[in-house]
């Protein structure tokens, strides 16, 4: 078990700086997910922790010890690669116990660890197969097995599920969760899938262009995104961003005046000027059809939303619609019987709406969580 700190990490490849002053931390037993679009530097960050890349500046600290100069094979870190990277010439068993054998562990220990890992990952029947004879999901499990038999201080996962199909991904996600609960090893997990980030992470670190945009618990990030990027990246379907004007006690959206909730009124002191142009952000999941709203009078309303497309998803219905000229997505109760071309009144809780500065893109009412 270990804790990890990255302090002022920067990394350049030639003249291009790909990581800018990264500061983050993983406490003991914590499962931290680095999430962001391709090329945001999350994998580079992971490789820096592993020691497969050297930081241009800053410190990687594991268990309160700066490890920048420590070779990767002395860092006691286990890593699961995106492409599994199994040893093709070794069978499943040899793949799994490779690292234990390297450290000269006694045979009994190797056997018990192998037994436990293969039972947990359901690999008992595959131990004598070569990687080429395994399916994608099985290979992934072997790669996990290779990590968990070790008594590693840290687990690093580099997009381990990105090569699997949706169903397997779901299954493996629970498996990773189970493994973490069982072993409790501090883990850093890299993914571009916000769903994985939300479901797996004790803490989520959202990255963009080599910078950390926000870090916090999954729900914190979901409910209090610090800027437009985080707001739209986390959550599916992504948050609606509507051009609006903010006044002292209402917000004007396409000619509709929507009264502000109490919390927002209190926060408004921080905002200079009346009629400020803002982006109004509301998650599609937070809308309700007026007819089936829970009857609270405190709910705000957007009237006369024109429905373009209705997509029944089973449990709920997703609609593509327009407020004036602006597109708006909403996820509504299954009972809603709206049809394409009709108008609808949508309700939402103003406390769950966000106002973003159109220039800085920062959330006006959430103090930035960046350190």
């Amino acid at each position, binding site marked *: 078990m270990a804790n990890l700190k990255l302090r002022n990490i920067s990394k350049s490849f030639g003249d291009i700086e790909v990581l800018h002053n990264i500061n983050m931390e993983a406490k003991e037993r914590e499962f931290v997910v680095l999430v962001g679009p391709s090329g945001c530097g999350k994998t580079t960050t992971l490789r820096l922790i*592993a020691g*497969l890349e050297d930081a241009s500046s800053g410190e990687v600290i594991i268990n309160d010890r700066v490890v920048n100069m420590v*070779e*990767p*094979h002395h860092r006691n*870190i*286990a*890593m699961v*690669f*995106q*492409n*599994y*990277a*199994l*040893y*093709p*010439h070794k069978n499943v068993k040899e793949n799994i116990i*490779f*690292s234990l054998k*390297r*450290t000269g562990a006694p045979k009994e220990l190797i056997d018990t660890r192998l037994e436990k890992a293969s039972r947990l990952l359901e690999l008992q029947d595959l131990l004598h197969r*070569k*990687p*080429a*004879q*395994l399916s*994608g999901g099985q*290979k992934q499990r072997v790669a996990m097995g*290779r990590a968990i038999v*070790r008594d590693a201080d840290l687990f690093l996962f580099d997009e381990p599920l990105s*090569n699997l199909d949706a169903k397997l991904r779901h299954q493996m996600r629970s498996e990773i969760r189970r493994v973490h609960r069982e072993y409790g090893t501090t883990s850093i997990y890299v993914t571009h899938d916000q769903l994985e980030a939300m479901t797996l992470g004790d803490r989520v670190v959202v990255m963009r262009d080599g910078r950390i945009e926000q870090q916090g618990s999954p729900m914190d990030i979901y409910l209090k995104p610090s800027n437009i990027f985080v707001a739209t990246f986390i959550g599916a379907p992504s948050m609606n961003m509507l051009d609006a004007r903010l006044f002292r006690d209402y917000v004007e959206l396409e000619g509709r005046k929507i009264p502000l909730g109490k919390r927002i009124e209190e926060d408004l002191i921080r905002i200079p000027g009346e009629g400020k142009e803002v982006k109004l952000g509301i998650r599609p999941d937070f809308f309700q059809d007026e007819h089936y709203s829970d009857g609270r009078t405190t709910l705000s309303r957007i009237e006369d939303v024109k429905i373009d497309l209705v997509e029944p998803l089973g449990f709920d219905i997703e609609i593509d619609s327009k407020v004036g000229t602006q597109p708006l997505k909403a996820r509504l109760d299954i009972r809603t019987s709206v049809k394409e071309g009709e108008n609808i009144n949508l309700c939402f809780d103003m406390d769950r709406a966000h106002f973003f500065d159109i220039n800085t893109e920062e959330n006006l009412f959430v103090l930035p969580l960046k350190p």
Partner: protein
Amino acid sequence: MTDRKTITRKILLALAVCAVLLFCLFPFVQILSTSLKHQFDWGNPSLIPIKFNLEAYKELLGITKAEEPVVPETVKALLDNPLLTEEKKEEILNRYRSTGDIFPYPRYFLNSLLLSASAASVSLLLAVFGAYSFSRLRFKGRKIVQRGVLFTYMIGGVMLMVPLYQLGVKTGLAKSTWGSLLSLLLIYIIQTLPVSLYMLGNYFRSIPYSIEEAAVMDGCSRLGVIYLVILPLSAPMLMTVFIYCFIIAWNDYLFASIFLKQFHDFYTIPLGLQSLFVSKNAIWDRIMSASVLTLVPVLLCFSFAMRHLTGGLSEGGLKE
């Protein structure tokens, strides 16, 4: 219609393949056939000997003893002189037993084998580390070194022959037997290294780097990675490179002819063959059977290599 077309095509292809095969294999068949013929049969254009003759093989492999030298009558009379010591007698007899008459195949074979195998082993060892550094490490001047190595391959052996021998003489290596053998060994290594580096380097590059990184994360040092991951995965290519180096050294005549000229006991097979060709004992069946015996190890090497050249060892460990 299409069926008939494909059949015709297949037949034509088969004929073409046969023609090429015939063209390539004919000299070898001719060698084999001549080596098995009796003297009276040599002029016969048929490839199948009228009567099989294994004498030449037996003689070369030392199964039958070489005949006593034929000494002219006058010399015989001389030998009867009681004043002549046994030593002198032997010396005179030896003149008629000139070394050109005898072709000590097992000895030449062993010389060639040891020299080629050691050259190939050292070359392979150096090539593994060299190729690894070319394919995986980033250091200043890597490209220049890499191309420089290939450059040496562009200069033919004939051009280097004299300077190399001079070098051997100047360093004093060419004076002694072991020095000459060492020079030859070095030459073979240097001669084969460029291609070995090139072949192995390309192969190493085809092994996904993430497998190496996985090994590093599993606690391997750089050397550990090479030994435990890269080498097992490259086994087919290592075999190929070894055989390539072996055959180059095995077939070399040029350098052996200058460095080993004076050391008859250390003749390699090509050198021995050449001396057999020019000796008075140059009988066709002996020459050809010696050639066949020289070819055999090469063929064995190839057939062995073919079995190991299935490749694709690194498949399956990754999701592409």
